[in-house]
């Protein structure tokens, strides 16, 4: 369980994060999407207990414990965006090193490795040098490292960064595994597509807070709402324009032969009403739809506007 209430962070005398609220239940994945500099990494570090924050509180685990910039004491597993360089260290040595830091050593660390490596698809890779691992394998190893301490909450900063699309399903599978074991997972990403396959509940980080929340479908719909209506008219284009002009929810109208684009700020009810009125006014419609642009472009447009 992870609860972030009214948390603010001041950086260089400005609010980077302001009254941010976010909750991740056990067995849930929450994806935070934000442009570079929006504060994703700062948020991750705050939850991992690495940096302090002004205002609000962060609670993690069951039973809930406050996290306050003095360390998260094994409650929160943290996978930073960069894996880091480990010269001449094998997978086993890497895990033994962090095991030692986490207070697990001797036969206990061997046992944990035997349990975790197969579970995270790293069976038999104990002697592989860490430097030779593929990017997605490094992420897998980082997850294994986190799970040495069995935290309740996991924070994965820019988890899919640098992973080719073909390998994303491997990581998706691991996230689902974490979900099944009841962990609360916070993932960040700079765009939508990496998180598309994870089934995560998404939130867009903008202007220091979570601006929009929902599943991928819900957010797509919300974002698509800034897209114009597109009409293809066979006959009576003028009539269509008349109908549109009378609508309050229609902003701009542009006409190109039989194709009309109308800036639209209405609901689905408004849309159905316009369609009915167009038909009633003898407009010969070929198609009438909300223009769907791809999620990423809409997202960038949206973030640019603000």
């Amino acid at each position: 369980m992870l609860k972030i209430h009214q948390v603010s962070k001041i950086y260089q005398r400005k609010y980077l994060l302001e009254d941010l609220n976010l909750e991740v239940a056990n067995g849930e994945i929450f994806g935070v999407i934000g442009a570079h500099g929006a504060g994703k990494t700062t948020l991750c570090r705050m939850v991992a207990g690495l940096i302090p924050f002004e205002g609000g509180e962060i609670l993690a685990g069951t039973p809930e414990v406050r996290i306050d910039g003095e360390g998260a004491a094994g409650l929160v597993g943290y996978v930073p965006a960069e894996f880091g360089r480990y010269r001449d260290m094998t997978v086993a040595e890497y895990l033994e090193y962090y095991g030692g830091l986490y207070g697990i050593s001797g036969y206990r660390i061997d046992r944990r490795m035997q349990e975790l490596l197969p579970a995270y698809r790293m069976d038999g890779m104990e002697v592989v040098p860490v430097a030779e691992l593929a990017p997605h394998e490094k992420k897998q190893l980082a997850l294994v490292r986190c799970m040495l301490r069995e935290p309740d909450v996991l924070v994965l900063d820019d988890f899919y960064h640098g992973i080719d699309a073909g390998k994303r399903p491997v990581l998706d599978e691991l996230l689902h595994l974490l979900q099944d074991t009841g962990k609360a997972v916070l993932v960040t990403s700079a765009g939508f597509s990496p998180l598309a396959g994870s089934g995560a509940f998404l939130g867009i980080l903008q202007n220091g807070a979570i601006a929009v929340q929902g599943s991928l479908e819900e957010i797509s719909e919300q974002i698509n709402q800034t897209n114009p209506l597109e009409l293809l008219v066979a006959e009576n284009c003028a009539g269509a324009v008349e109908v549109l002009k009378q609508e309050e929810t229609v902003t701009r109208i542009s006409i190109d032969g039989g194709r009309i684009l109308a800036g639209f700020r209405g609901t689905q009810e408004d849309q159905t009403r316009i369609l009915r009125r167009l038909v009633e006014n003898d407009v010969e419609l070929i198609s009438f739809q909300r223009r769907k642009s791809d999620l990423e472009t809409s997202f960038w447009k949206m973030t640019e506007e603000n």
Partner: protein
Amino acid sequence: MKFKLNPILREEMKRYAGSRRFYVWLAAYELLLLAVSGTGYGIALRNGWNHVMDYSGIAYVYLVLAGILGSTVLLLVPSFAAASIASEWEDRTMELLMASPLKPFRIVAGKMLSSICLTLLFIVAGMPFLSLVFVIGGVEKRHLLELLLVLAVESVFTGSIGVYLSALSRKTDTAGIRSYLAAMGAGIGTILIVAVVYILRKSSGGHPAGVSPVSTFVLLLLVNPLVTLASLLMGHMGYTVKFERLLNVLGTLPQGILTHWCMISVLLQLLLSAVFFCSYSTPPAALLSVTKTSHTKDRNPPIIFLMSITFESDFCHIDS
């Protein structure tokens, strides 16, 4: 009660014990000491053919070797410790280190301990050459032990200063340079300050003859590792009086301090080390900045740039 070894110390020791480069450096060091002691003892013992034995010549070889060991400490300890901390930043592994239950104090302590242990390995490796002096005599077993102890104290002292300065560095090269400066500041800078004060005060005149113009400033030398070492070695050689006279030239000091110079300076240096050490218990936030560390630039005065192009950054990395 279970004794838990600092995991950083354990890990660094494992790394270096398994690295070829370390043993190459160690072998080179041994060869250097072999060359010096071989030449020294050879020259000193050659007089034996004339049946006129200059035993004191052996003492000088001992002094030179001890001096080499002392310089080793001054040069190696700060840069090892500084470089190993800065390399955590460079390798982007510092963040995870901070996120572990290990307190920053223990992280820094572990780094310092590993650099001290590694340097002491070098020192102990040099002991056999020093002990050859027993063949002739003039030095007692306890003197070697005392030397080892003082060198250990100097390791801790220079290590704590070096680490303190390097905690601010994000790059191994500048960390190494800064720690060298720290060591030189303690070793040479203090002498320079005292010398300058001496010259200034002497030339300004107005001091009665026989009374040194510097007086209390000389106490600054208590933190100078080279002076501490010198006082110890001169004591071994039986030159305590000479040492005291030397200091008296620079400044009038109470006899108590003069006779126990070595002991007092050792205690003072350990105290200062403890002070530096306690300052490491800063919370992670102070050391971990929000800005992307890849763009962090170390700002250094021009002299550091000049030094960085003359020093081999190789010295700063003991790479596995």
